[in-house]
């Protein structure tokens, strides 16, 4: 599998479209434990990415990832803008050093996850998007090169998002709720799951 520009473009499109389609669900999760703007914020950012899709996909992978990151930073707002923006900016920076796909995919993803953790000053287990991104990264490493990699990534993303439900938030707006934050899937974990699964579905369609 190599990442041709047209494949990259279709992956970005389907990921953005899936997030836009999930906006009502993300908003309702965020209304339960946050400030209720995650769906509209992510929708705005993904629409901006779709609007620049031709320019983004004309760039090499590293520059394209950075352009996605910058677009999200400038348009999403809320805490999720800098968090997702930092993921793609750092992933783009890593892609300029590790350009072999799929071999370097885990390293590129790792850089993005590290940037999210640094930006949010957050770790695993705090009911955030990291609770999906970190298990996905671990699966990218442990199942690298295996035939069922995509299935396993997709499964772990869904499981990991569900596992945030009983967690108590200690970061972000949900932490104000303390124990009352338990019982709801974290909206950021859910949007990360939607993004990862959209990319998985898009890659499966290419095989």
């Amino acid at each position: 599998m190599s990442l041709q520009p047209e494949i990259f473009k279709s992956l970005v499109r389907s990921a953005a479209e899936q997030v836009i389609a999930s906006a009502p669900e993300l908003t309702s999760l965020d209304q339960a434990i946050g400030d209720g703007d995650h769906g509209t914020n992510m929708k705005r950012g993904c629409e901006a990415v779709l609007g620049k899709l031709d320019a983004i996909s004309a760039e090499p992978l590293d520059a394209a990832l950075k352009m996605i990151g910058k677009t999200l930073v400038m348009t999403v707002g809320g805490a999720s803008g800098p968090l997702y923006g930092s993921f793609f900016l750092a992933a783009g920076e890593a892609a300029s050093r590790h350009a072999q796909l799929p071999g370097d995919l885990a390293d590129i993803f790792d850089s993005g996850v590290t940037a999210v953790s640094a930006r949010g000053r957050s770790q695993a287990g705090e009911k955030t998007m990291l609770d999906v991104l970190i298990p996905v990264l671990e699966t990218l490493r442990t199942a690298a090169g295996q035939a069922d990699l995509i299935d396993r990534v997709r499964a772990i993303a869904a499981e990991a998002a569900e596992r945030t439900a009983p967690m108590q938030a200690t970061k972000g707006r949900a932490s104000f709720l303390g124990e009352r934050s338990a019982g709801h899937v974290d909206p950021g974990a859910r949007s990360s799951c939607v993004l990862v699964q959209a990319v998985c579905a898009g890659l499966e369609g290419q095989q």
Partner: protein
Amino acid sequence: MTDTVGIVIVSHSADIAKGTADMVRQMVGSEVKVAFCGGNSDGGLGTNVPLIIDAINSAWSSRGVAILVDLGGAETNSEMAVEMLEPERQDFVVVCNAPIVEGAVMAATESAGGSSLAQVKAVAEELSAG
């Protein structure tokens, strides 16, 4: 007039940002450049990086700029805005860990006296230490 540290106020609410800036101006006059922003790009509650960058530019001073924020997203977006500046300007902008209204007033008062960026930040942050 020698330059004084500029003050930027970033709230999720445009009304709070403006109200805070009004209080600062009334208390410290026009010695200090004060800029503010609040709300997302749709006019709702939220913060947004391009507006924060504009505010930093409008409060820009050779002595630096101190940013006061309200809730978490304002802090995260402000840090992101600083990183989007040219590298040589980034060291001249700090985000203060202080309550937004009191912090802005204290920071601006300290700035009006000609203090450095580090002193301005320290005075604002004393409010959180107690």
